[in-house]
């Protein structure tokens, strides 16, 4: 078996999701090659060569790949794919964009957003917004897969793969890049943040949310709120995490003064690590928290901000 992993990068640096995807590939087993398609992306290739588990780094460096246009990347990947048993990409907006085109071109199904590898042809993936987990088996000749990063640990970077450049460039001629506006805000949006700190009714009033912002600034975190805090007028509705708000799954979720009603848990239970700070030790939030701190949030949160 041999596996092709498509790297996520911005031509300047490799994105972390690539490391988790390599881990998924290693779990499937076999030779792992990494494809970097971009423009002036040598630095990325250098970085990628260090990922352990990667055999070869293939670099397609050309203007047609500069902006990861799905029409162009998918032609390249489907051409390469015939030599592999599996093609994997991170389930980023980029991976989700071009991979189904690869699958359709190869006349195979795609297995989206796997969170576990059961065997070389069987995988687990969440369906119904994570409310059910399906185990799916593929009999296709090439398995086209996107990988949810939070399902796999990041591969370590102490390897030394060979770098080979590919002399390939196809422009489908269907689309062109106009512009890109990356969010400049210091604080990430709730749905894309890796760390979220949320406040509940225990915050007492809206000005106390500034305590959370101090922690958020230190961690590069987004600030969220529970429905109860929003209803009490402590926070605007677009900060709401939960059944009727945003569904989030960051690496770290810190719930402050949130009791943990099921309606809130529905919006954050897929977070990798959950921390609860609440003075009521019976609060249901402690039933789902990896780390709980029974303390007055007005003492604990400033102390947390100071110790980061």
């Amino acid at each position, binding site marked *: 078996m041999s596996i092709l992993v498509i790297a996520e990068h911005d031509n300047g640096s490799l994105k972390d999701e690539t490391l988790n995807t390599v881990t998924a590939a290693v779990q499937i087993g076999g030779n792992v090659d990494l494809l970097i398609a971009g423009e002036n992306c040598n630095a990325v290739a250098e970085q990628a060569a260090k990922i352990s588990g990667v055999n070869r780094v293939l670099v397609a460096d050309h203007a047609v790949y500069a902006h990861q246009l799905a029409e162009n990347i998918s032609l390249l990947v489907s051409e390469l794919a015939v030599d592999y048993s599996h093609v994997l990409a991170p389930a980023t907006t980029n991976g989700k964009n071009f991979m189904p085109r690869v699958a359709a071109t190869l006349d195979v199904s795609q297995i989206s957003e796997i969170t576990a590898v059961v065997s070389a042809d069987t995988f687990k993936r969440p369906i119904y917004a994570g409310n059910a987990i399906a185990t799916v088996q593929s009999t296709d000749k090439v398995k086209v897969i996107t990988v949810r990063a939070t399902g796999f640990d990041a591969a370590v970077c102490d390897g030394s793969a060979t770098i080979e450049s590919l002399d390939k460039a196809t422009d489908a001629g269907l689309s062109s890049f106009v512009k890109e506006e990356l969010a400049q805000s210091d604080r990430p949006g709730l749905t894309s943040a890796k760390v979220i700190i949320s406040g509940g*009714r225990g915050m*007492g*009033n809206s000005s106390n949310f500034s305590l959370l912002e101090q922690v958020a600034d230190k961690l590069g975190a987004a600030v969220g709120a529970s429905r109860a805090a929003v*209803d009490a007028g402590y926070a605007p*509705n677009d900060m709401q995490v939960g059944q*009727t708000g945003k569904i989030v799954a960051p690496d770290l979720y810190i719930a402050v003064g949130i009791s943990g*009603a*099921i309606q809130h848990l*529905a919006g954050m239970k897929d977070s990798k690590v959950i921390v609860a700070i609440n003075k009521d030790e019976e609060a*249901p939030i402690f039933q789902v928290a990896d780390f709980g701190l029974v303390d007055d949030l007005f003492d604990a949160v400033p102390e947390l901000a100071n110790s980061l």
Partner: protein
Amino acid sequence: MQREAMEFDVVIVGAGPAGLSAACRLMQQAQVNDQELMVCVVEKGSEVGAHILSGAVFEPRALNELFPDWEEQGLALGEKVSADEIYLFKDEQKATKIPNCMVPSTMHNEGNYVISLGNLTRWLAEKAESLGVEIFPGFAAAEILYREDGAVKGIATGDMGVDENGQPKDSYMPGMELHAKYTLFAEGCRGHLGKELISRFNLDSDSDPQHYGLGIKELWDIDPAKHKPGLVIHGAGWPLGKNAAGGSFLYHAENNQVVLGLITDLSYENPYLSPFDEMQRMKHQSVFKQYLDGGKRVSYGARAIAKGGFNSLPKMSFAGGLLIGCDAGTLNFAKIKGSHTAMKSGMIAADTLIGVLASGDAGGQDLTQFAEDFKCSWLNEELQCSRNFGPAMHKFGMVFGGVFNYLDQNCFKGKLPFTLHDLKPDFAQLKPASECHKIVYPKPDGVFSFDKLSSVFLSNTHHAEDQPCHLKLQDATIPLAHNLVLFDEPAQRFCPAGVYEIVEDEQHNKAFQINSQNCVHCKTCDIKDPSQNITWVTPEGAGGPNYPNM
């Protein structure tokens, strides 16, 4: 923006058993008479059945009349009742099974079915649509329209896309006026338009006050080895005991599921009582627990029940319309059944209407003929015979009331030459908190019993964000200034969905918070608030619970 109007012969408010039976019967009769008829049904639930919640042990009498061939037409009604068990519970452990011969005859269920009323209404809606009825789920009848002469002209559906301050949002769509020769109100118990009609037309001037219960129900998947299809269990006594009248039930339905619940009579006096917590602890009774052990809760819901019966039945006709089903109060509490009676009331309404419309009536009349047709029906006889059941329970208590009802129903067949009355409305029954003992409920164990919010979660309740609160306070100061002081604000406890809360800020200032998005449309607040200060109105259409098999 001006509202548009549409004209129909008959507009029906509510796609429940009464409204849909009326619709089906109207079209059936119209076909027989070769009569052109435009009938429409509006339903506030997101789909037909979404807001339907009932036990339910179903007596098929009315259905047999409406669709004699329902079985051939593909209706799988449910499980035929295979056995009846009635218990008197003393506590969590002790239960006395009442011998069958000692049970009032109205409580026998041979020939009945354990059904999901929601699924029956879904079937009735299909039938109605195939007969040519226009059914509009997701549209709430928000307002009654009147003609100049005061007769009901129809209804208006609520505006959609209005923000919490009443301002139109981008998605704003004004309501529609639905005009009809006659409008049938079939909103179910304590319909908010029905309430307006009863007061505007003084429909209850000759009847006793309506009495209510709050039914809280759950659906469970149980261990198939413990499942006894068609077994019907009723219980009295613990946990309500002396605190309230009412009773518990557990029915073995299809597909290894049981439905269970508790009806708490809303005439209770102690403001500390919490029907929700009573229901949660009821499941720890060994008779129920034996079936639930190893099972999983699937769904939750609650709905008020109009149980005053014959004595509380208002005048059901008024200029331009009729009040049918539980909106009027046709439930037979002696049987704890309201579906067949609601259906029958809708069918009688249809029969009255079809004759009137065939004669070229322009609408807007007070159809006094309906009362005559009603009186000649088995429905009237059935309700009249059960008239003393509820008042006897209130007057004599559960044991002596029970004995009375046994004699009344089994020996005298409801024909005793006197009538018991129950004249105090339920909201006026509450005693000041200072005169009552505080009830301490056990913490939910997360296995058999649960908290309110995780329960509401299973009702699939949803209301569009940013809309006006649909629970209106006539006087916003009453909850804190009066209800909290005198009754420890009972809304915190009688609401089975956690809508009402007293919250405190850091400075210990109290506020009355209404979490209207949790509302399961049971109407208990409108009924039981001791100050009659809460008015339930329809939220934006399609809001509320989404019950699957309730």
